[in-house]
């Protein structure tokens, strides 16, 4: 493509000296090759999604014994997490040898899909979610300020009627399972999340469930 006009030997022009007419075109192929090479390199190496962080406050380690007169957990849900499996029970835990009003605690299995875990949490936390919906409508109708909304939502999440979540994991649970669960809990606008160690009785129950 290098179109530089060649003079066909200097022998047969008749005295007149002509300026050599060279084409203005330059061969751009190598440059284009390089440009595309660089382009491919940058396209393939660049990552645009910057990693995000999800904050989670853990309970402080206190050596003091637990206060026996502390109010009982009445609207809590406990998740027992194993590898890619998730079980839950609501309210207090009653082992087989010390059954409660409705007999010993039974585990219910669910999954990480929108129809599983998300629905369970949305149903149980309807107290917060319904009020949140009302507030969102108010914000949209410009009856409530954004800042008031965020503040009210935080207050709402901390109310006694709001759902509390306990997360217990066994030895096989993966970090992905744990983070997925916390994520779903956050989607359901739950303010109180406590990752706590599993009781031996719970572990036994979980293992019998897993064997089924």
């Amino acid at each position, binding site marked *: *493509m290098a*179109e530089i006009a060649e003079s066909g030997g200097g022998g047969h022009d008749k005295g007149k000296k002509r300026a050599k007419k060279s084409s203005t*075109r330059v061969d*751009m192929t190598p*440059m*284009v090759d390089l*440009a*595309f090479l*660089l*382009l491919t390199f*940058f*396209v393939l*190496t*660049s990552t*645009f*999604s*910057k*990693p*995000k*962080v*999800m*904050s*989670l*406050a*853990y*309970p*402080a*380690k206190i050596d003091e014994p637990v206060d026996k007169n502390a109010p009982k957990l009445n609207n809590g849900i406990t998740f027992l*997490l194993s590898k890619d499996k998730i079980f839950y029970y609501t309210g207090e835990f009653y082992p087989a040898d010390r059954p409660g009003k409705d007999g010993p605690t039974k585990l219910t299995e669910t999954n990480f899909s*929108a129809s599983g875990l*998300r629905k369970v949490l949305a149903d149980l936390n309807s107290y917060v979610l319904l009020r949140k919906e009302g507030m969102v409508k108010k914000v949209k109708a410009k009856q409530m300020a954004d800042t008031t909304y965020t503040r009210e939502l935080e207050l709402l999440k901390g109310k006694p009627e709001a759902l509390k979540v306990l997360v217990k*994991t066994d*030895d*096989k*649970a*993966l*970090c*992905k*399972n*744990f*983070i*997925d669960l*916390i*994520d779903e809990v*956050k*989607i359901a*606008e739950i303010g109180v999340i406590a*990752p706590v160690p599993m009781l031996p009785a719970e572990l036994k129950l979980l293992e019998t469930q897993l064997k089924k």
Partner: protein
Amino acid sequence: MPKIKIPKSSPSIDMTPMVDLAFLLVTFFMLAASFRPSEPVTVETASSISDKVIPENNIMVTLDTDGKVYFNLTNPEARKEALNNMASLYKVSFNEEQIEKFALMSTFGCTMKELPAYIDLPGDSRKEFKTEGIPLDSLDNQLKNWISYSQMAALNTGKTAYEEAKQKGLAPDADDFKPKFIIRADGKSVYKKAEKVIDVFRELNLNNLNFVTSSEFNPNNPN
């Protein structure tokens, strides 16, 4: 018979617009790309709806699929201070050059004994360095010491940065200058291993932790 003449068109096409575009894209990607130092470990994190970006001043503990623990601290000044403290505690000596090199390094995962040799390696071969990660069991809890010294050092550097910002007439938020604690665990690692790291943080009374995640669609906030 008359011959059918095929019109002779020039085989060369004007490539200028294409080249223009190509260079425009090259420039864009070059400027948009941010180069980061190579890390000794690749981690596939789980995804979450969180849209909080990683804070700049952070102390990060990485956990890979095998449960090995790596440590990173972002502020170079704080890195030097933490290394000096760790060196005197574990009686490992570093020369000036090693300290300078360490300040500019990224994540590392080796014991204090291995650290001088690890620093001396050229950047590319650090990935192949055979190590068991930073020990964190109760007999030799180096991770705990790293975290506590780093936190002190990062608080000091954060404090000077805060004072500087104040003198410039800005209204800085003191919280922005405090180091944040981040756990970057591989999605496939066992949670119990992450819990051990979390327990180290909790023993130091650092209970507000952050998990690194990749972003995911948020059903509450569809934009």
